[in-house]
């Protein structure tokens, strides 16, 4: 990212702040989010880690938050940009509540609003470095969608961000079905998170499962998954590559 884009902030020679105004690379990042639709609504799983490059620096970051009455937002990528997005949504929800007229923002509206924001930022070459997962229930209808940092947006029955796309989605494609019970949904998500824990370097073993139904949002207390390291493949991991070549 060494090209310069002319920006309306004055001459780059004279004005030291021009380039530092744009997001060039992320600093503190969250890893995958995995989410599925189930019988009563949507389940979302995330770990509580914030990495600083390759250092697992922060271990108590909540990467899933409730939005209004009907939605749940999970984010991977730059944590500070996620916090900025939460501020935008706060304002949106506040204004919606102030109308006090029986209408309320549903998950579809929030998802589309976020898509507009992300795409607009991308067009200005100043992205919010996140992949967002938006899940919710309104009037009995479940909704699950995703928006990336370049504004790509879609809905599906199960979504995952980052490494989750490569490791969790295949599991979900095989094992997800409509009308999963809560217990089966959690078991399925834990299966995905366990694989991510083994194989994603930036994953930590402290996760939260959040659920949203018509009644509202519940975010679980953080807990750990049991792991097993005695697989044969984990003994003598360099067996296939002795020495240097």
């Amino acid at each position, binding site marked *: 990212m060494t090209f310069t884009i002319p920006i309306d902030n004055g001459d780059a020679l004279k004005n030291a702040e021009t380039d530092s105004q744009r997001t060039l690379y992320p600093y503190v990042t969250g890893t995958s989010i995995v989410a599925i639709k189930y019988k009563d609504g949507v389940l979302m799983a995330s770990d509580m880690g914030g990495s600083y490059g390759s250092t697992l620096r922060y271990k108590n970051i909540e990467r899933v938050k409730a939005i209004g009455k009907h939605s749940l937002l999970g984010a991977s990528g730059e944590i500070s940009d996620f916090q900025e997005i939460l501020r935008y949504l706060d304002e949106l929800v506040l204004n919606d509540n102030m109308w006090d007229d*029986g*209408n309320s923002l549903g998950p579809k509206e929030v998802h589309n*609003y976020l898509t*507009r924001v992300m795409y607009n930022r991308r067009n200005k070459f100043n992205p919010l470095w996140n992949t967002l997962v938006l899940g919710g229930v309104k009037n009995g209808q479940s909704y699950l969608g995703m928006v990336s940092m370049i504004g790509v947006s879609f809905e599906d029955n199960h979504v995952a961000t980052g490494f989750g796309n490569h490791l969790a989605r295949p599991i979900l494609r095989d094992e997800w079905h409509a009308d999963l019970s809560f217990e089966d949904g959690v078991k399925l998500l834990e299966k995905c998170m366990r694989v991510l824990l083994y194989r994603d370097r930036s994953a930590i073993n402290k996760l939260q499962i959040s659920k949203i139904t018509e009644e509202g949002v519940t975010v679980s207390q953080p807990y750990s998954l049991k792991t097993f390291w005695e697989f044969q493949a984990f003994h003598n991991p360099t067996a296939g590559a002795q020495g240097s070549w």
Partner: protein
Amino acid sequence: MFRNQYDTDVTTWSPTGRLFQVEYAMEAVKQGSAAIGLRSRSHVVLASVNKAQSELSSHQWKIFKVDDHIGVAIAGLTADGRVLSRYMRSESINHSFTYESPLPVGRLVVRLADKAQVCTQRSWKRPYGVGLLVGGLDESGAHLYYNCPSGNYFEYQAFAIGSRSQAAKTYLERRFESFNESSREDLIKDAILAIRETLQGETLKSSLCTVSVLGVDEPFHFLDQESIQKVIDTFEKVPEEEEDGGEAEAEAAAAPAEQGGAGDQDVAPMEM
């Protein structure tokens, strides 16, 4: 209303606390041809009387589609009405673009009212000379609102504006309690009957009125002349029925209570 020394400027109060220019703007609404709105729990019907400048010209459009779920009927300065309809369409489509969801009618109406209020508090502006009947559907059900040049707005079960609207209002007052549970067909019939009231004796033909409907699972659209004529035929064929008897009495009582019901010759060309 007579001329007085406090009515030159919209930003001048009278000693009795009135803004005469705003009230004069509301007079302009009364000069336009009638527009009527009614709603049930699931549908809203907007109807208007077609008036043409001359026999040679086409009639003035008084009902506009704002979105699939919102329509507006105007009375007064139609140019002002068109500008406000364009504003409403713009607001509605911007909301749909950002949220992929229809704009709640109540919120649109407030924005419209605030826009009208601005014109009552700037010395370099004048109030919009048009009344708007906004009908729409949202999460909380079917709604009908009336927006005034003063910036006020009210919600109604049924309402009529424009010249000879009092006759229509009287008819609606007698029937409005049943509207919430009315079927779509009955609601349309009541709208056309209310239009007939404003015609005061002139034979009701489908070419004289425009009717539009919107409802749950039914986007805003106009009824074609054939459908309107069919509804008219169900009651116009037997003029001495008990319904008509009641109407004749109502007309006689309404005529002296008429407000601003100027004859057609006195209507300024820019008002319809």
